[in-house]
């Protein structure tokens, strides 16, 4: 077990989770989705969160994005408590979130437009982001003319255009086929090597998590806690052969064994209830 991020001294510019929990209330029941998450994403770090289905990974991400308020504890970025969506965080979703009536360029510029940036400036930024994600030449295409992978690149470009301190990605490649997924993952790493923002990346693909991240947080079944923080000590940049390294396999096996226990708990609980 690697030292927990909680024990590491956290810097002022970090994303800090301080005993974060959230409970959802409905008319008939209350569900504790996240019990207690404590941790830190330091500057320039790529952190992935994996865990069994329904363990509250996305909920955690939504809380950092300011879309949900924790009912326990707090999240702070740059020493400021997150109380709502911030200008220095931006999100990429699993589902296609492109605006079908807008061109690629206008999609990428959407966030900047909402923030009231002048037209010339936002198009300049949007153009360079379109180039960064490899969509040059598609600026005036509509999302309907693009493949699923290209649409996700539009979403990534839109998020990067906001020049976020923290990039929040909720299974962004989850709806893509395996080939596209690996290819776009490699591209994401190349982009990230240039921008080096903090990334919180939700996935349930263990390989993807190991390949992309500096740290992988393994979440337990609901109500979830961070069960273990696994540091990925693979050298960067990571060429395509990285998957074949013995250390990669080791980390993958270790994460798989952790996830298996949690997944069995979830399934077991389901079986008992049934």
């Amino acid at each position, binding site marked *: 077990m690697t030292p927990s991020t909680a024990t590491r001294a956290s810097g002022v510019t970090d994303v800090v989770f301080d005993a974060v929990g959230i409970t959802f209330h409905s008319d008939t029941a209350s569900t504790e989705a996240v019990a207690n998450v404590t941790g830190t994403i330091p500057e320039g770090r790529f952190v992935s969160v994996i865990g069994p289905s329904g363990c509250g990974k996305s909920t955690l991400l939504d809380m950092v994005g300011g879309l949900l308020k924790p009912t326990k504890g707090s999240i702070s970025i740059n020493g400021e408590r997150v109380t709502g969506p911030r200008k220095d965080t931006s*999100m990429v979703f699993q589902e296609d979130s492109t605006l079908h009536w807008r061109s690629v360029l206008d999609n990428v510029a959407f966030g900047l437009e909402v923030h009231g940036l002048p037209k010339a400036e936002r198009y300049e930024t949007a153009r360079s982001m379109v180039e960064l994600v490899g969509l040059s030449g598609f600026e005036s295409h509509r999302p309907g003319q693009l493949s699923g992978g290209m649409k996700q690149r539009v979403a990534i470009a839109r998020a990067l255009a906001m020049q976020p301190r923290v990039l929040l990605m909720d299974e962004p490649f989850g709806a893509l086929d395996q080939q596209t997924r690996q290819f776009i993952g490699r591209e994401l790493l190349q982009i990230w090597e240039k921008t080096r923002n903090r990334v919180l990346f939700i996935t349930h693909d263990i390989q993807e998590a190991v390949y992309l991240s500096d740290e992988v947080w393994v979440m337990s079944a609901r109500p979830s806690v961070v069960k273990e923080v696994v540091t990925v000590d693979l050298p960067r940049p990571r060429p395509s052969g990285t998957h074949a390294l013995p250390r990669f396999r080791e980390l993958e096996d270790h994460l798989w064994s952790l996830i298996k226990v949690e997944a069995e708990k979830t399934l077991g609980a389901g079986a008992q209830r049934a």
Partner: protein
Amino acid sequence: MTAVIEQRRVRRGNALPMKRKAALLRWGIIVGVLLLLEVLTRAGAISPAIFVPPSEIIWRLISIVPTPQFGRDAWVSLSTILISFVIGLVVGLALGVFLWKVPAAGRVLEPFIVTGYAMPTLLFYPVLLALLGLNAGPIILIAATMALVPIALTTMVALNAVKPILHKLAKSVNASNRQYYLKVLLPAATPLIFPGVRLGFIYAVIGTIAMEFILAARGIGFRVGFYYRELQTGNMWAYIMIVVVLSVIVNGLLTALERRIRRDML
């Protein structure tokens, strides 16, 4: 590679004449029916009280269209249709947004509105005439009501169909409510609202012409009824042809507009 291109060219090469063939055939049917009617009426197989030769209808049209009376009738009908449509559009959109925004109200009111679809609203025309008098008011009231029903329903359905992820996206970039409505919700829903708007317009036309036909002092529908009662079959058909041509033009314009809006959806 060249084979693929070749194949595609061949396929496209076939597609165009197919379309052209269909259009040609359509015009062929129209001309054929007109010729058949011409022959049947001239031979006396169809009574002149029911139908007159198409060539005569065309002559009537040429003499009717330049008259000031036709100008007045056309103006009255067109303005009534437009006013009814605009009222139906504004009220229909507002009602649709309300039904979407307040789902409880939607559940209570939706059956009434759906009934509005099925019910021949124009039966209330005589009552409204008695209440409001013989003017444009009763016609506009009924035509607008007929128009608003499909507009309200499609607006509600379209807004409900906007993907929740788009709301999440707007929230994540801290968009105001106003920005969400104008930049996301409205453009996302427009292609789905449009078929209802188109139907609303058609209902405004039907409502106006039908009510004029039943009882009015002016308008194209009134002329059709007037010449029908006067047994001037030739003039009656001339005015019916005007309505047909008007409908074809309006339908063409709406189709073109809809295609433009839909193109964005791809």
